[in-house]
């Protein structure tokens, strides 16, 4: 069996790449994908600890995280489409005014 800490290390790397995506990229869609990557790395930790403790609760939490991620993507992409309609850009640096 692979030790849990190996999975934790991989998940840390994936999470850091997700943070880098949010901080370095300015395309709103890629920002969203980076957020999905971070959620995914958190899911990996949940499942790894679920195996370590022999309890299924972690896997249930992953199920809920997936549901919330799906809802978040639906609303977020709708927001991006709306912003693109009014600004003709999805660069997050361009979205600097409260009034559209």
């Amino acid at each position, binding site marked *: 069996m*692979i*030790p849990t*800490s190996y*999975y934790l*290390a*991989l998940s*840390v*790397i*994936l*999470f*850091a*790449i997700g*943070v*880098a*995506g949010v*901080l*370095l990229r*300015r*395309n709103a*869609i*890629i920002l969203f*994908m*980076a957020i*999905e*990557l971070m959620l*995914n790395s958190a*899911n*990996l930790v949940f*499942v*790894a600890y*679920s*195996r370590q403790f*022999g309890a*299924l*609760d972690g*896997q*249930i939490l*992953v*199920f*809920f995280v*997936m*549901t*919330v991620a*799906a*809802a978040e*993507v*639906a*609303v977020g*992409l*709708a*927001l991006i*489409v*709306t912003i693109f*309609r009014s600004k003709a*850009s*999805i*660069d997050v*640096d*361009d979205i*600097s005014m409260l009034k559209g």
Partner: protein
Amino acid sequence: MLPNIPELVIFLVLAVIAVAAALGMLASSNAIYSALFLVVNFGVVATFYLLLGAPFIAMAQVTVYAGAIMVLFLFVIMLLGAEKMKQTSHNLLWQKPLSIVLIVLLLSISFYVVLGQGVSVGSDLMQNASGYGSPSAIGTLLFQKYLFPFEATSILLLAAMVGAVVLTGVRRQRRRIRKSRRL
């Protein structure tokens, strides 16, 4: 107990693919390539779930993440024609070096915590227990212990659906109504 060699090789190869796909998502200038790299990453993570004894979560990962969510992403990218958005002027020039410093800090702190924990394999009993992570076991837990959160997610999904429809649909109809009134 150290992992046996074939398992370790499989893990390392998959881990390298996952990290490479994530880096590809981060670095590629075309948003479509980023989305496809992310699909690869999700597929590899689904394989990790299978290795961790979570077949139901693995299949949900493939259908929900790699399937539904990424199709939504690709659809929006193609709808907006936003494949190649050029990186426009940076208003905050100090932001990039600062973010790199912060990422390195985050990585080092997290690795300090993870490695300080020691190498633990966890309980072996689940490997022997039949039905661990199977759909029936998940379903039993979901509909008994976690029934209320499960029902709450249905409201969340409904709210998200209504929100998405309202955000994207209504404005255009309003414009049409205004136009028809002007006429």
